[in-house]
């Protein structure tokens, strides 16, 4: 089918933070700094004239305010313009902006997401607030137990061992050392990682991505605008997203269905039939170490139950045939709540531009980027990017 709708490109990126704590700036000031950088990167845009609409991605309970939408326009240059908030991950916001441009009504759309995780004093209580009040929140344990339940089931069915989880941690923390945006890089052996104390078996503090503060802004545009404004547009070839049942106890714990369905949608739009061959680099959600393995399988970058074998062979290393999280992933960079997907999208965009200082992979032409909305959700989004015009 020939589409008359414009292709969609990323023409600008900007960020502020990538730090465990940002005492010096409010979330609004962080977003302003990120926006100024993104508009400059997009060819010196003036958002008051040159941007048609704005999408922000935020969950009120992480923000500590209600109706976060209303707090967002000023610092992006979006006052008196179309602005809305997606209560979801940044990649869901990218999908939303992509659709806006596809309508033909908008030429340039901005997507913003941020994390001010260091402001949250009762993280586990707030996370627990996402559980059903009548039949799941009665469990009086840190909500990370849900990750433990899933990890145990997945490991039982797949043959994955704790040493494989430690290998993910080892790879991602090592990759992060040379990434100037990463906060949690370190050189640790698999044995050292295995010695860490359990939080919920089989997960230790090493298996759980630590949090960071960050604000990220992307500028998306039609093909015409991209060609006029940008020397290095990155093309969004496909987007997808999906959510599983909210009855947690009936979910399929052995497979990340939300990620598989989202990937199938994005691959279909991108015309990808053999992801293993057609994808050069993957940015995969690793909020927990085992999730990277599950997600790699959901995205068909490994066969089911064999991602740990590919990991053993070094296939996901930065210099391997299919680098996964070569900038360190969330375990090495830190995880930024609903800005998580945009952290991954930024890593992929910089790789495709050849600007991934300290972690550049050679010859990258197409990336897949995937995010998951953290406990207790089963929502995921996938974006396929390329630096080659269709």
């Amino acid at each position, binding site marked *: 089918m020939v589409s008359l709708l414009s292709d969609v490109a990323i023409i600008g990126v900007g960020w502020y933070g990538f730090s465990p704590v940002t005492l*010096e700036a409010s979330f609004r*000031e962080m977003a302003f700094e990120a926006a100024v950088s993104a508009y400059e990167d997009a060819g010196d845009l003036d958002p*008051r004239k040159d941007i048609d609409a704005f999408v922000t991605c935020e969950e009120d309970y992480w923000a500590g305010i209600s109706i976060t939408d209303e707090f967002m326009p000023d610092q992006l240059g979006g*006052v008196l313009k179309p602005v809305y908030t997606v209560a979801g991950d940044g990649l869901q916001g990218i999908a939303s902006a992509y659709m806006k441009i596809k309508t033909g009504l908008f030429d340039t759309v901005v997507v913003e997401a941020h994390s*001010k995780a*260091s402001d949250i*004093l009762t993280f586990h209580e707030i996370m627990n607030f996402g559980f059903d009040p009548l039949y799941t929140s009665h469990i009086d344990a840190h909500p990370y137990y849900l990750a433990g339940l899933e990890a145990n089931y997945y490991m039982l069915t797949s043959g994955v061992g704790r040493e494989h989880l430690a290998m993910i941690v080892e790879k991602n923390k090592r990759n992060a050392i040379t990434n100037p945006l990463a906060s949690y890089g370190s050189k640790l052996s698999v044995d050292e990682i295995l010695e860490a104390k359990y939080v919920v078996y089989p997960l230790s503090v090493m298996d759980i991505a630590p949090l960071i503060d960050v604000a990220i802004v992307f500028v998306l545009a039609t093909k015409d605008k991209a060609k006029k404004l940008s020397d290095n547009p990155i093309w969004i070839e496909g987007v997808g997203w999906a959510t599983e049942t909210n009855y947690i106890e009936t979910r399929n714990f052995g497979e990340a269905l939300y990620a598989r369905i989202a990937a199938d949608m994005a691959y279909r739009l991108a015309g990808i039939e053999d992801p293993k061959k057609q994808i050069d680099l993957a940015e995969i959600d690793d909020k927990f170490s085992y999730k990277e393995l599950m997600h790699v399988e959901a995205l068909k970058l490994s066969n089911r139950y064999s991602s740990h074998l590919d990991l053993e062979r070094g296939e996901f290393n930065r210099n391997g045939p299919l680098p996964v999280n070569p900038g360190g992933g969330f375990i090495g960079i830190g995880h930024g709540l609903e800005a998580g997907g945009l952290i991954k999208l930024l890593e992929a965009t910089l790789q495709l531009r050849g600007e991934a200082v300290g972690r550049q992979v050679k010859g990258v032409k197409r990336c897949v980027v995937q995010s998951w909305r953290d406990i207790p959700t089963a929502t995921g989004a996938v974006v396929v990017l390329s630096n080659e015009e269709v």
Partner: protein
Amino acid sequence: MDEKVRLKGTPIKRFDETITVERSSTAKYAWTAGQAISRFLVELKKGKLIGRRCNKCRRILIPPRMYCESCFRATDEWIYVEPIGTVNTAVVSYITTTREKLEKPLIIAVIEIEGTGGSGLFHYLEGVNPEDVINRKVFGMRVKAVWKPEAEREGSINDIKYFVPITGGEEK
């Protein structure tokens, strides 16, 4: 009430027959004030009102922002202003946040601070008869801030207790 009218819902007399499950959660944040509001609060503690000026549109933004939302550029300068303004709009509230009746109604106003070009504060108005809000006499009235005693100030918008009318001939 006409006894034939049947209202929907559970009558209060049957409320103790329903099952209720109590659940609470503690949501605590250390909300970062940022560059602009941190300075604003520190100055309030000193009994001063400060804003940020945008040298493009010439407005003084109060509460201060490090960026001008209209011009989309960083603001340029810190500017002290007198805590004097004009009542832009006002309202009389007869109920609390939880809808309990107030013995003494509250008057809430938007006060446009003089010389800022439209910036203002949200605050209480005292020394005004609720009737004068209802008959709109307070609209456009010049008012000034009444501060808490210095020892009681804590770097909060409530370091200003309220605004009161400036009576004839008085400057501050």
